């Protein structure tokens, strides 16, 4: 039995401790906002926060995060997260939308550690998150826009 602290709630799961957090969230808890994109930390679609740090849940075994605070897109309601979400909506960033949970989690982590990121900061923080629709220009603009409101 593995106990996880997800979005402030304790969740017990009877799973192999080596199961990636991504599949524990999705198949185990039916929390489907966190997406599967590559399975090898190459695309960022599965990004969640572990103790505030952006983390690729597809390569993170649940055994490695027991006892740590996990935040998913469903529970991302910090001031920075809400600012990011509002800017994403204001600028209509999304297209297919499949990568956007991960983009929002990565952008939120950036703004929580850096209130006024430069374009270079955004490149550094967001280049691990792939968007095949290539919404990058709006992601960049939305991060700057969210920074304005923080």
């Amino acid at each position, binding site marked *: 039995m593995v106990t996880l602290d997800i979005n402030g709630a304790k969740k017990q799961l009877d799973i*192999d401790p080596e*199961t*990636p957090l991504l*599949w524990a969230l*999705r*198949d*185990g808890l*039916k*929390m*489907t*906002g*966190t*997406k*599967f*994109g*590559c*399975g*090898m930390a*190459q*695309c960022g*679609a599965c990004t969640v926060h572990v103790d505030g740090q952006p983390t690729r849940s597809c390569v993170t075994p649940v055994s490695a995060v027991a006892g740590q605070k996990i935040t*998913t*897109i*469903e529970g991302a309601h910090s001031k920075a997260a809400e600012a990011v*979400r509002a800017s*994403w*909506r204001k600028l*209509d*960033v*999304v*297209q*297919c*939308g*499949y*990568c*956007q*949970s991960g983009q*929002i989690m990565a952008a939120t982590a950036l703004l929580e550690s850096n209130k006024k990121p430069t374009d270079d900061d*955004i*490149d550094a923080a*967001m*280049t*691990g*998150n*792939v*968007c*095949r*629709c*290539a*919404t*990058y*220009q*709006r*992601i*960049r603009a939305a991060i700057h826009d969210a920074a304005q409101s923080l």
Partner: protein
Amino acid sequence: MKLTNDTVGRRGFLAGSAAASLVIAFNLTPHGARAAAAATNAKNFAPNAFLRVAPDGTVTVLSKHLEMGQGSYTGIATIVAEELDADWSKVRCEGAPADAKLYSNHLFGMQGTGGSSSIANSWDELRTAGATARAMLIQAAAAAWKVPAGEIETSKSTLRHAASNRTAPYAQFVSAAAALPVPAGVKLKDPATYTLIGKSAPRLDSNAKTDGTAQFTLDVYLPGMVTALVARSPKFGGTVKSVDAAAAKKIKGVLEIVQIPSGVAVVAKDTWAAKQGRDALNVTWDFANAETRSTTTIVADYKKLAQQPGAVAAKKGDAAQALASAAKRVEATYVFPYLAHAPMEPLDTVVKLGPDSCEIWAGDQFQTIDQGNVAKLLGFKPEQIKINTLYAGGSFGRRANTQSDFIVEAVAVAKAMKQKAPVKVVWTREDDIRGGLYRPLFVHKMEAGIDAQGNLTAWTNRLVGQSILVGTPFESMMVKDGVDMTSVEGSADMPYDVANILVDTHNAKAGVPVLWWRSVGHTHTAFAVETFLDDVAKAAGKDPFELRRSLMTDTKHTRLKTVLELAADKAGWSKPLAAGPAGVLRGRGIAAAESFSTYVAQVAEVSVKPDGSIKVDRVVVAVDCGVAVNPDVIKAQMEGGVGFGLGALLHGEITLKDGEVEQSNFHDYVPLRMDEMPKVEVFIVPSTAAPTGVGEPGVPPIGPAVANAIFAATGKRVRELPLTQEKLKAAIASA
């Protein structure tokens, strides 16, 4: 994708099949839809198959077109809401059920999404649908208020009779309107009065796609559902010889191993168990009928074929004679690699199979074909196949294929499991990258002749590549005399007036499954035509922009010429480009392409370092797609098209070694990332012409615009894509 690209073909096709279903749809929908609504919810107002108004006033638009990111739901709902005068905050959109009678794509003659056709398809159909519903609401209010219908005005889901100072929300008349007969010949709005069309209504899917609640196929969890991964042949065309499932069966959570036509499925209680089970599976493959060549061999074979005349796609004058007598000749050979679509959501399908029913959840792009293929597999009738079309996490063409590969495979798994449980079949990224149905590998061989006065007098373009359509239901319509229109579109009908032209093509054979990939033939023809024209400009001592303008003489290219001029103007083409820092070369390139009846020109500004690394600093896009239903979505599609095409130009390549795909995931099938995205500026030509699509047309010009900018900066060309740093470095270093 484009399934027809000449008006004669399209007209003939419509006359043959689609026109009939259009008429049927309009004759049947009022009664059919009302009866259906009555059966499920008597209080809804559903005057036709495309919309319903709930008692609370919520307007739900049923989209026959898949939402895969291109903004179709928003655009389609905008058209309905405009004529309905609906309050945008009360408008929703959902995927229509699979029903070719009601929801046929008039371009294909069946239900499906592609060819950047969604808005063009919807323009007349949905304006009429919305206006009809509005007329009925007005009629209902007129009867209740005992005033002439002509005195009632509407706006934002509200009815108003000024003389008696009465207003009411649409919700109040939903029941009364539902009881009225459906009128015919309802008048449409004067475009000058539009309040939504042309005004960039916010996307309908922004909220759900930013809080994690948007439902994709991967997010479907049915009670008792199991998950399967499929082991497929590592070489295309291979078959299962034997299976050793002993180790796989020992993995905790693995439920059963079933063999299906495309391979061996590991069925498990969840995805992780299925993955581990498949990793432990030991399959021996029979490669007797498999493609075992390497891409280097395929390219060499194609280059050999390019020395032989092919099927003639376009002919004017005598190109051979004109080349022979030219004062100057230019030649080039291009190689375009196989490309995977790699949508962010890997392929997936959920199937619930019963003794005489089959329900499917998918980001379904070809509903009618998928129903037919599944019905064939099961021995059912197509109407027994119920399809729930969900948001697709990207497609770029991949989810629309005539074999219905991923959907049929999932149903085959359900069938092999003897209907024990609903099943979700998930593809990993590796399965996706190695799964085929690629943009075909193409070789282009080109020659041009220039006379003593510097005029372009001869142009030849020979294409070698696999046909996408031969062997599919679209062959009879789209392949004529050996010419697949999807191979030569953009080449055979290039917009430049040259006195002597010969375009011919070979439908090369290879055992690699191929498919349309966002903008189809234009993915390679625009690059070949538009970069070769720059080579001609240089040889003739002419400005690339001015040469293009001077050759767009036919009035049918006026709109393309207009976007070309607009892009050049907005990019400041007439002024010198600012120099870069020391050691950095800068260049500016231009390219234009008409695709899917939309006109796009782009100017790219590029910085090149001696090590071959480049940065695309800025891209100016000019687009004419007729009426701009939602300008912001059009801009988004141009931005996205630029990024998607640029990623393919710089990195995209699927290669085979002895028949096996060498790439597997995003580390070696490299997508464009944030740090490579240029600044994109989009300018939309104001137009009153019927709207056309924008999902694909942003892609074709970016590759050649960037390559031309690099050429302007360095004088060097890379003609075998992708245009990687290594290749560019070698080209720069060459004499």
